[in-house]
């Protein structure tokens, strides 16, 4: 049901390696370019963050595992550009294209500061009445899956599927990634932070009293 990116709780990944504090420097020149090209291309507005996340998730598992972080970004960017009709497969293969004037929605240098400072708020007005409030017990969907598109994008991790937790925060209505990733509209829904006892997720908590909290959309939940 799930994809390779859904790795919460997985065994076998080894140690986490801390790094110096402060602003994170780029290790390679191409990492810098990978980040800047991805953000600049995203600025055209031809895809949402949900669609771009899904593009990374649909990399073949063997590619997802062997690609470094920015290689995933670059692979997904190439796939998104072709999917959006902005670049052709022939152009990718040739590595060149006929010169063209600036695209009408090109992110221009003088607009960068404003665009980055504004961001893209994901709250929306919505008609749905909030079904839950802090303190309510809820059960998550089982299995974790996109019910609109088989194999589609969802933000319910497998480790938290079919589990009972407690609503701790109401975030208001947010764009539903399961729909938006697939260009099915934003379909905003109430979003909640739901806390689960670690013991209920893993069978045994590392320490009693530990919890894991996830942000979950109303349609992922039922009363418990």
């Amino acid at each position, binding site marked *: 049901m799930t994809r390779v*990116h859904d790795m*919460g709780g*997985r065994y076998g*990944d080894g*140690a*986490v*390696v*801390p*790094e110096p*504090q*402060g*602003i*994170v*420097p780029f290790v*390679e020149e191409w990492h810098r370019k*990978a980040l800047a*090209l991805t953000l*600049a291309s995203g600025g055209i507005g031809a895809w949402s*963050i949900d669609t771009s996340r899904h593009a990374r998730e*649909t990399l073949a598992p063997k590619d997802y595992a062997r690609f470094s*972080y920015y*290689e995933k970004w*670059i*692979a*997904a*960017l*190439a*796939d998104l*550009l072709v999917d959006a009709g902005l*670049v052709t497969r022939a152009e*990718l*293969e040739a*590595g*060149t*294209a006929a*010169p063209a004037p600036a*695209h009408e929605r*090109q992110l*221009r240098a003088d607009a*960068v500061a404003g665009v980055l*400072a504004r*961001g893209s708020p*994901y709250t929306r007005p919505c008609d749905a009445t909030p079904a839950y409030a802090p303190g309510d017990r809820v059960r998550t969907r089982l299995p974790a899956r996109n019910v609109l598109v*088989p*194999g589609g994008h969802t*933000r319910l*991790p497998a*480790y938290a599927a079919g589990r009972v937790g407690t609503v701790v*925060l109401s*975030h208001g209505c947010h764009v539903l990634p399961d729909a938006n990733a697939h260009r099915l509209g934003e379909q905003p829904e109430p*979003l909640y*932070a739901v806390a689960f006892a670690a013991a209920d997720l893993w069978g045994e908590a*590392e*320490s*009693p*009293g530990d919890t*894991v*909290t996830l*942000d*979950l959309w109303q349609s992922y939940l039922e009363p418990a």
Partner: protein
Amino acid sequence: MPHDDSDHPHALLPSDPALRVKALETLLTAKGLVDPAALDAILDTYERKVGPHLGAQAVARAWSDPAFRERLLTDATAAIGELGITGRQGEHVVAVENTPETHNMVVCTLCSCYPWPLLGIPPAWYKSDAYRARAVREPRKVLAEFGVTLPEGQAVRVWDSTAEVRYLVIPMRPEGTEGLDETALAALVSRDSMIGTGVAEAPK
């Protein structure tokens, strides 16, 4: 619409990642899809301007100003906005405060969601499979790899960032900092302490 066919377009690019990026840059620039000067402006933002010093400002203010702390805990997006901290990947911020009873720790198991306007670009470890896989299941073992040992009885609350809400951990104010001003306090607030893989250190 998932593309599960074996002929992903990205496979048409050269295999060397540096050449792959170069090819995309050439194509996107030639086609007028990307303004080369915009690339420099984006990098200037995240290499020089936006980083954990901004989150540290917010934490130091919260430690110094009880009314700001209250606003930060009630509506963090608005509160950090007062300090001019806004933007991409920080559109909806929730601040969670460490206490003697609860230690908060943030992860994104599904990708690499991170509060960019407060902390900048995430470090490699935050995006690593090891952190994503393990932070939710064995947070104390992960903390030990950062040199952090929690006191007995302090519970861990892990926040898995599955939506567009971004979490900022407010670390506990170290003892012996009563006389310090906000600038001196901010210097004690590391990036990792605002993710929850570190604690704020007492002044040396």
